[in-house]
């Protein structure tokens, strides 16, 4: 009897979870489905669950930049350059700071950590106007470097918090002995501690990359044509001779790929990454 009841519970639990996963994935399936359809088929009624004649035309249009101010994979390559550079810089500055915070024994260490994290909570809409005015004066509008600086500032608190946890998990004695052996502080950091947190660097880097790749508001305000990124390409399909759903979804797939890959690679660290590394998980 109890065994029967256990079986029923299992069936109900997995049945409901299947429903949840169906709801989570159906819109994503529909994005892929639409991107593979021809123009005539996209708005067919009733909708086709599987494209009758799958085509890559929409992807070709996105790459050709049809109706866009830029051709080729310019938007995607801008995204790649900006996200990669800002990730590397925030990893460098962030892990230095994280290491210092993890080793500095003072009440100010905790306060500084909190202050650093608090800068991430400010709404981007509040900083975007003054940053725009600053960058206009510095001639950084529509330059890669402008967007890179904005994303470094955006990702630094996150990287610092995530790496602080990883450094705190390493026993300080290891570095002590390296220092006794004559290593400088920076040398002990570089040769002893940093190699030990390599997995942490990878996870923090992945999240920082995806955050920069996905960001919209700063990209909208700080770029025009030359350094516009993928989210802007998607948004501009709205303006082109009505809505081009197929191309928009093809661009949406390109924009979503890093996040989906991240979900599979960083499985164990998803909670930590999504909560700014603030909560143990």
């Amino acid at each position: 009897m109890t065994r029967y009841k256990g079986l029923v519970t299992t069936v109900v639990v997995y049945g409901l979870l299947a429903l949840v996963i169906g709801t989570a994935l159906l819109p994503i399936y529909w994005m892929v489905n639409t991107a593979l359809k021809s123009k005539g088929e996209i708005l067919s009624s009733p909708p086709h669950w599987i494209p009758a004649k799958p085509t890559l035309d929409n992807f070709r249009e996105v790459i050709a930049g049809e109706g866009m101010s830029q051709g080729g994979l310019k938007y995607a390559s801008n995204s790649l350059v900006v996200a990669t550079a800002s990730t590397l810089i925030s990893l460098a500055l962030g892990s230095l700071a994280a290491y210092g915070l993890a080793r500095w024994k003072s009440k100010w260490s905790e306060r500084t950590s909190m202050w650093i994290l608090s800068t991430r909570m400010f709404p981007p809409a509040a900083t975007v106007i003054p940053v725009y005015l600053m960058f206009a004066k510095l001639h950084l509008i529509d330059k890669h470097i402008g967007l890179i600086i904005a994303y470094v500032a955006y990702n630094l608190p996150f990287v610092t918090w995530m790496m602080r946890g990883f450094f705190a998990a390493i026993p300080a004695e290891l570095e002590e002995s390296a220092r006794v052996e004559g290593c400088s502080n920076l040398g002990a950091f570089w040769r002893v501690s940093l190699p030990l947190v390599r997995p942490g660097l990878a996870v923090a880097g992945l999240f920082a990359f995806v955050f920069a790749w996905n960001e919209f508001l700063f990209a909208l305000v700080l770029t025009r044509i030359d350094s516009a990124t993928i989210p802007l390409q998607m948004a501009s399909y709205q303006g082109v001779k009505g809505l081009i759903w197929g191309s928009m979804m093809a661009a949406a797939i390109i924009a979503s790929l890093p996040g989906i890959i991240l979900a599979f690679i960083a499985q164990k660290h998803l909670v930590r990454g999504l909560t700014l590394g603030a909560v143990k998980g």
Partner: protein
Amino acid sequence: MKSPPSVVLICKGLGMQRVLIRRQQATWVGFILPCILVLLAFVIFPLVYSLSLSFTDRTLTFPTYGFIGLGNFSELIHSSEARQTLLNTVMLVLGAVGAELALGLLIATLLHRATRGQSLLVTLIAIPSLIAPTAVGAIWKLLMQPGGLSNYIIGFLGFNPLDWFGNPSLSLLSIMVADIWQWTPFVSLILLAGLTSIDPTLYEAADVDGAGPLQRFRYITLPGLQTTFIFALLFRSIDVMRFMDKIWMMTRGGPGISSQTAPVFIYREGFRFFRVGYSSAASWSILLMIMVLTTLLFRFLKDNT
């Protein structure tokens, strides 16, 4: 360069240890400094700059501008558009975060029970929270357009099709649905982490005492989840007050201003109507509200990490 241990001992003997420790502390500050400088230059300075702009009538079109005191703020208070925007923001926070917490709790409980294949299930469920918010907006714009899949399903279930983006009383709801789809996975994952950290012996003890499933939920699960729950509530509320990407993709705040929230208002005033002074005043108003939530969140983090 080896410094023999005896040197360290001599230093200690001479009472130099303190000096060494102090020098060491200065080094740690040196490690942290570059990060602090970047944040001061590109987050704190812009915010201070924005505060000073909020007392001026500066625009992007006229080169001259002047100090107008609290003029922008009093205009905000008397503007019916600003009031509607605030109301929309509050409704979006209540609706979206409320639904995300309720559904998240349900899904977390299910995941907690599903011990077999849990990590794969978690990964699949997490995907909506990781893809680009603009893509989320684009997908839901496609699904909710008049001839789209959502109306096909609604019709299939025997209801009348909905004009999500044309009907002012539905537009904010459409944003809410997209946000709930995107962030419920994240909320379920942190609640799952909270559930996993509850001591299983508590449940065993409750079984011995003959507690039913409802009582176990009420007296063990809920109190055990309180911290995680409040964290998720504050964290999501702050985020819903900040995002604009999905709204920009789906409705641009329309029709009219029916789905306009604070960030859209700030962006439009600043970059469509070029009133950067007024827009800065609006951003500082919403900033103060977010600061209250952030302070609560941090008090919470401090006590519970």
